[in-house]
């Protein structure tokens, strides 16, 4: 902090300061939009009684999805025992924490009475999927905070001011395996119950099926790991001080490729099974996706660019080993999962199934987010990117140096052994 305040007077325009400046502007615009929402109410959105959830829910679902790298990589490191990957699990944990706070911001705007957010914790209807979601968010956010303690202990200012505290914070690392178990349970429950939020609604035949829960978990693991590897790669490319072990990143990217195979497989059967016989509301919903207004999102955003292209790029040894192609593939995975969340939410709402007697008739409705929704949404996203950027720079969120050292040591040992 001292260094910072000294630097401030002689402000220099660097790519870093431009980047932070740009993100700050987007955040400021977002905060203004958010204040307008709190002041004027949700009437400033384009949401209606027919489409009560829109862009912000997509951002909420997506930021939870990209947070899934945390539970999956922590489980890999501490439960399966792939200790080599602990450096990337750290990155994933931090991204997870930021993702969850992003979700909280977008939800806070999205509920009609933000001042009553605490009702969700105090008044329980255990039968509600959103109750389960609330509990998982709260508990898992707590777990993520504990898991991130050793990362926050890296803040130089904190180390100088409170050396004992930071030592304690680092000590939380000893409980990492236990936190990983709890986190695995909570996070998987959370990802799947977000899918089930839609899946239990009998009034919406397109959603009323168990598959969304499963697809939400699989796609979240792909997106979470993808974003983690992407952040690690781009950080190492932009800064000389950040060292990464590319062999680790390459292995995780390869694994993501296989997850995409599984994701495509389930998505294929999920969609195909809906084409048999006519079911009012469901058949129309599927055709919204495959040939209606959402078809570009579905075929290009979700399937072609979101699954098939990155799957090929990540499973093909040559393209996977080219950093640029690997990074493109990872970004496509994240984009595809965001498109999936958007399509899932919207396809169910755009179909209005009549309750009138006789043959159920279908009508369609529309939803395009308003400017305020976009500004507030971009603000939340910019906050997430800014937090991760600051974390990478000041908290060593991406730091594989100990892994690299260990490998060097073991290399040397081997070399010595051979020499002896």
């Amino acid at each position, binding site marked *: 902090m001292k260094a910072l305040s000294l630097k401030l007077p002689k402000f220099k325009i660097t790519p870093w300061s431009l980047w932070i400046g740009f993100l700050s502007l987007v955040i400021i615009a977002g905060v203004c939009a958010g204040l307008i929402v709190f002041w004027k109410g949700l009437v400033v959105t384009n949401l209606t009684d027919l489409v*009560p959830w829109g862009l912000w829910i997509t951002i909420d679902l997506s930021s939870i999805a990209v947070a899934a790298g945390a539970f999956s990589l922590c489980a890999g490191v501490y439960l399966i025992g792939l200790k080599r990957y602990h450096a990337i699990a750290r990155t994933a944990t931090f991204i997870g924490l930021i993702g969850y706070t992003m979700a909280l911001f977008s939800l806070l705007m999205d509920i009609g009475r933000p001042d009553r957010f605490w009702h969700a914790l105090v008044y329980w209807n255990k039968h509600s999927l959103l109750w389960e979601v609330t509990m998982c968010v709260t508990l898992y956010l707590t777990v993520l905070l504990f898991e991130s303690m050793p990362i926050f202990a890296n803040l130089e200012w904190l180390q100088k001011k409170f050396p004992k505290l930071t030592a304690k914070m680092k000590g939380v690392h000893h409980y990492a395996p236990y936190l990983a178990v709890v986190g695995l349970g909570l996070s998987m*429950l959370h990802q799947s119950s977000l899918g089930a939020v839609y899946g239990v609604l009998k009034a919406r035949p397109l959603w009323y099926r168990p598959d969304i829960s499963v697809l939400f978990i699989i796609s979240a693991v792909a997106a979470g790991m993808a974003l983690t590897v992407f952040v690690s790669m781009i950080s190492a490319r932009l800064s000389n001080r950040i060292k990464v072990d590319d062999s680790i990143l390459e292995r995780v990217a390869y694994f993501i490729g296989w997850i995409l195979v599984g994701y495509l497989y389930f998505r294929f059967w999920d969609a195909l099974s809906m084409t048999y016989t006519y079911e009012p509301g469901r058949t129309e919903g599927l055709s919204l996706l495959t040939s209606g207004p959402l078809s570009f999102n579905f075929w290009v955003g979700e399937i072609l660019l979101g699954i098939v292209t990155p799957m090929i790029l990540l499973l093909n040894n040559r393209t996977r080993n080219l950093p640029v192609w690997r990074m493109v593939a990872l970004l496509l995975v994240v984009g595809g999962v965001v498109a999936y969340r958007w399509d899932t939410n919207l396809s169910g709402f755009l179909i209005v199934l009549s309750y009138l007697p006789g043959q159920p008739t279908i009508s369609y409705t529309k939803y395009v987010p308003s400017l305020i929704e976009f500004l507030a949404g971009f603000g939340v996203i910019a906050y997430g990117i800014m937090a991760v950027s600051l974390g990478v720079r000041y908290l060593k969120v991406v730091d594989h140096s100990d892994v690299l050292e260990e490998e060097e040591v073991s290399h040397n040992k081997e070399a010595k052994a051979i020499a002896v």
Partner: protein
Amino acid sequence: MTDKNFNRRDFLKISALGVTAVAGLNMIRKAEASSAVEGAHQWAMVIDQSKCTGCGYCTLACRAHNDVNPDISWNQVIQVEKVNGKDVFIARPCMQCAKAPCVDVCMVGASYYRPDGIVMMDYDKCIGCRYCEAACPYGARAFNWEAFTGPNPAVPQWGEPEIERRGRGVVEKCSFCYQRIDRGLKLGLTPGEDADATPACVVACPVGARLFGDLKDPESIVSKILKERVSYQLRVDLGTSPRVYYLPAEPAGTGVQG
């Protein structure tokens, strides 16, 4: 790294604990599988489509007595078809389902069952997440996207407000005019027979197309007419068990719809 302390046995122990906890939670859920606890009364509404002329007085009376925003209809009247050259309408209040999807999904329990079968809203609890709107098959719920300020255009011509106006940011819906029922019962009146104890829409209907009463009382007007005439409910296939019954427009009751 202290992973040495964490061996397979510990992992299994913790996992077993987790599984037990989840199983326990599910058992609690089953025990609480929500449905109404039946009280002494079970209110129901019967709407006779052969009489309804689609005048919309019910909607206006509802807006006045419940102080509803003119942009919102707790009770919507929709034209559905023509029978023998005559327009047929359907009036749609809240169905007060015995197995209400909105009660199931409400995370804070702001939607709940009264013992008399009315699905109530606790406007002080609602956080405005709108999950219930997504869950309701009848479109019976409306969100207050903005505050309803200023005078209510339906007042005083169609009645005086009897309940507090809802603020911005909560979901609202028809409540069978619970305030009239409760007040009427205290005064010794019979809902469905005495106007002061009966929902405003039933009282306002100029052609007597709406009937109200207690299903538990075999002598009530709704019990009697449901025994005599063919009736149907909306979307019974969803298993919601609505408490609003419709008498079809065809006089002989041949065309049982729904």
